[in-house]
């Protein structure tokens, strides 16, 4: 299990080339098509990568919280994907430069809008920055504690860490739910500050969990297929499929409940946000989102045969991940008008995908593929349903 796998130089160089090309394209996009589209793309990727990382950190803490054994042999995968958190939080710090471009409530006209004046106790720049910094601090602290602590345990075999990790899981949950709600309200629904939905924090949480479980499952199956997790068997990743199925239903429930309540009540101040996202060119995008994020994974994963079949599970996770990206795109981009995916979007996708994969490749080399120092590992390997 401590097999060292040397990554191919070719792959790394290709990723560097992707980052360079994407970076050049992004700079050109900033100069030619303007800062608004540039910062919208930046925010899209920052949120997408952050929710991937946070979703995996949440899964790590969830295992500690409920005292699960079955997931211990696979825990290195979410710990490694969680290493997107430092990258994504850096992107958010840079995104502070784009706040005046992205958020209408920062502009002087906002002082004449009675709704925004009433909301100014929350929507003001100093508090906004403080909230972001507090969230980032909390995420990085928990990331260091759970991921680096687990890596240290490989060598120290210190049982005390397992006890501490379990003890810190409940406070993590509280901090996580508060911070993910703040992220949702500040950085997504804040794009249209007159609009509000009580459900929105839960909506982003559902998407985050789904992105986390899908990326973890994809990571586990990729490593399995490369022979890097020989002890992990179908009975282990079968549960990942079950969780994925449960949470596509949860996401669909939250998303539909929010949509239907707004549709039914038909209040002008609430309905504009939804109307912009389901009419015109955004209608097909919303439909694609519903299919990729719910119908496709739901019908692929509902049978027990599907959850055992690696190819089926991989298709379902890819559908969920693409759906999650379209979800974030569908939340952010309607503020710019009709749906567009041109060369600026493509080059920024290349830049951030390159950065994310470079980060993940580095993380894949850290520590053993199994958490060898975890006292629960043996129990997890033996675990039977």
């Amino acid at each position, binding site marked *: 299990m401590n097999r060292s796998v040397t990554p191919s130089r070719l792959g790394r160089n290709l990723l560097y080339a992707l980052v360079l090309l994407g970076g050049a394209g992004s700079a050109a996009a900033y100069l030619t098509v303007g800062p608004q589209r540039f910062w919208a793309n930046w925010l899209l990727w920052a949120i997408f990568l952050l929710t991937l990382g946070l979703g995996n950190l949440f899964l790590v803490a969830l295992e500690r919280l409920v005292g699960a054994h079955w997931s211990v042999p696979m825990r290195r995968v979410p710990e490694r994907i969680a290493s997107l958190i430092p990258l994504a939080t850096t992107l958010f710090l840079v995104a502070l430069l784009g706040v005046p471009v992205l958020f209408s409530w920062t502009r002087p006209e906002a002082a004449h809008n009675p709704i925004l004046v009433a909301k100014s106790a929350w929507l003001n720049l100093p508090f906004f920055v403080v909230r972001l910094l507090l969230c980032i601090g909390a995420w990085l602290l928990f990331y260091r504690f759970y991921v680096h602590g687990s890596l240290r345990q490989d060598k120290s075999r210190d049982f005390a860490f397992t006890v501490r990790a379990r003890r810190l899981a409940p406070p993590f949950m509280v901090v996580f739910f508060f911070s993910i709600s703040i992220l949702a309200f500040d950085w997504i629904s804040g794009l249209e500050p007159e609009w509000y939905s009580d459900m929105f924090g839960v909506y982003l949480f559902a998407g985050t969990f789904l992105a986390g479980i899908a990326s973890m499952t994809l990571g586990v199956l990729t490593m399995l297929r490369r022979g890097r997790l020989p002890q992990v068997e179908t009975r282990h990743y079968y549960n990942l499929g079950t969780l994925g199925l449960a949470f596509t239903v949860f996401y669909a429930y939250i998303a539909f409940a929010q949509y*239907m309540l707004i549709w039914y009540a*038909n209040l002008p101040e609430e309905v504009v946000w939804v109307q912009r996202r389901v009419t015109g060119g955004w209608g097909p995008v919303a439909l694609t989102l519903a299919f990729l994020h719910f119908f496709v994974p739901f019908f692929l994963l*509902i*049978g027990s*045969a599907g959850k055992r079949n690696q190819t089926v599970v991989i298709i379902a996770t890819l559908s969920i991940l693409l759906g999650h990206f379209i979800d974030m795109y569908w939340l952010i981009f309607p503020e710019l008008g009709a749906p567009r995916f041109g060369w600026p979007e493509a080059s920024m996708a290349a830049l951030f995908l390159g950065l994310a994969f470079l980060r993940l490749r580095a993380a894949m080399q850290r520590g053993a593929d199994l958490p060898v120092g975890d006292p629960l590992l043996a129990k997890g390997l033996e675990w*039977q349903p």
Partner: protein
Amino acid sequence: MPDSGPSSASTFAVVGLFAEPEAIIAAARRIRPRKLGRLEAYSPYPVHGLAQAIGLGESRLGTYVMGMGVLGALLAILFEWWTSAIDYPLNTGGKPLFSWQAFVPVMFEVTVLFATFTAGLAMLFAFNRLPLFGHPILHAKVIGQITRDRLALSLERTGPGFDTEQARRALLESGALSVETVALPSFAEPSLRWLLRTVAGIVAACLVAGVGIYLAEKLVPVVPPMIHMHDQPKLNAFRPSTFFADGSGMRPAVAGTVARGHLPFLPKSPEEAGRILVNPLPLDQRVAQRGRKVFDDHCAVCHGVVGNGVPLLSSAYGAKPANLLSSDLRGRPDGYIYGVLMLGKNAMPSYAADLDADDRWAAVHYVRILERAEDARDEDLP
């Protein structure tokens, strides 16, 4: 005793006891390919691999549940579409009659209803053979051990080809500690008579319950029957009420309220009306038709169909209706005719209560049309 088993025909199964999970799995693997009968296993605790060893496939229950769930969703949306868009179209808040958003919760509920009922009923009737209340294994002598600390492998009789002796030998050779032949209980196959009696019993129970509740409600009215919307706190028109200061349940209209189509008429005489009112209706085909209908229904009986003052009824009536084609009336404004309709003139009563404002103005237009028709010229002919 265990060796004096019944003959093959009345045998349910031959049961062998085992002490260890490994032993029963090995025995099942050995016996299964010989196809001596239907293989079944009993265990007081879950044994991994035993289901595969006796060749237990995946349950078909999931397929049934999925199929019925989809059927439930389709039936629900069909039903909602038919009731709300076809049979009884009801506009709700200006939303489309077929609003799938509003249908989803009901679709979801019906899907769950169909799926859970299928799961429960299919399990009870199709897989647990419900009219069969006791599984034959419950009559085996080894049942006390099976539910405590022993595992059992049984070969069930599947047809006349089943050989009890062969099954016993096979189980003993595979390591069974002891073997017992379990007889088929006498009530195993429910008779038609039994089924009819059961159905009749259920119907009788429903009848007794329904009639009993009906009579109890009628004869012993302790619980008043629900009479829906008749009894509710409300204020009735023309009834006294202690709620409002004036003691009346009916509210007077707010001062200055103008009902649609009932603008107040202020002039005191037709002449005054002629000075201040103008016809607000633009003349078109539709207004002319309406004016003709109003005129024919209300005016023509006295003023004549062409308005020349020759009544349709006998002139013995006494009054002398005005000739609407006279030069005097031609010289008066539209508002004058409207004023006469509102206030009446000589023997003509007021039509304020019979017609609404648009009807009266349409009739005024029609009077003008009749005047024009009187002077028709050759070039007016089509």
